């Protein structure tokens, strides 16, 4: 499913408003430990996390992730959004906690298959 459609169906807010979100997403990864994401995410993953600082953009770029979904209603730092726009990493925000939003994603066919 396209990022855009996931965001629309699950009511996420697109924080990087200047970016297109047409990418097709098949898999995801959820973790708040950056080294864990670096080691275990795969290209194209949608990353669900509670972290909000600039380094999440670096991880997303390094691993070629399709986007970042910030859970539990946390707000990304302003410089995170600035860098995300520059590096073309879409960032979404949901008020749902990670467990809930990952469950919904799974129902829509997004798996954690490695």
């Amino acid at each position, binding site marked *: 499913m396209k990022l855009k459609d996931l965001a629309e169906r699950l009511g996420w807010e697109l924080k990087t408003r200047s970016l297109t979100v047409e990418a097709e997403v098949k898999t995801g990864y959820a973790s*708040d*430990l*950056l*080294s864990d994401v*670096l080691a275990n995410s795969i290209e194209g993953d949608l990353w669900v996390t*509670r*972290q909000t*600082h*600039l*380094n999440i*953009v*670096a*991880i997303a*770029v*390094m691993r070629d992730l399709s986007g970042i979904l910030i859970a539990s209603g946390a707000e990304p730092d302003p410089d995170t959004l600035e*860098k995300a726009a520059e*590096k073309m990493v879409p960032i979404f925000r949901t008020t749902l906690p990670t467990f809930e939003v990952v469950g919904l994603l799974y129902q829509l066919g997004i798996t954690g298959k490695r």
Partner: protein
Amino acid sequence: MLELSMHILDIVQNSLAAGSTRVEIRIREDLPQDLLVIEVQDNGRGISDAMLPKVTDPFVTSRTTREVGLGLPLLKEAAERCGGCLEVYSEENRGTRVVARFRLDHFDRAPLGDMGETMGILIAGNPGVDFLYEHRVDARIYLLETEKMRQILGSIGLDDPSVLDFVRQDIQMGLKKIGAATFPKIMEVLR
């Protein structure tokens, strides 16, 4: 915990629960050594020799056995997760010193967080306690001492709302000036 300032708040609350009247918080960033050291020193009741080895064991944390909460076990985990360690020194009736070391630019090093907010809460919430906050980045130093503030403030208490604002802003600006590392520099890889 997502930010180091939250860990610090927690550790200092242990100090306050132990009846400290003076708490010194020192943060040192050593760029050449890739090291971040957080030190909290208090003059509280201290921890007995029998209890000291157990303070970082999360399962000894019941209210009946000791007063400190999960603060130390969580700080230990946060430090060790990024190539650091935690040391606790204490002497009964003299005080306790907690030293947490982190690798400054380790990917999993939690961001510093809002030290202005943390110190503001601590100072305004405990106007009778003396706080010192020192933050070093190599040779550059930021220093805040409530003892000095008291002299300047005169009859205005440290719990006055304007003091909270001042502390918050002074720390935020001060840390910016000395170039404090709010989070690990891993964006470098993108250059």
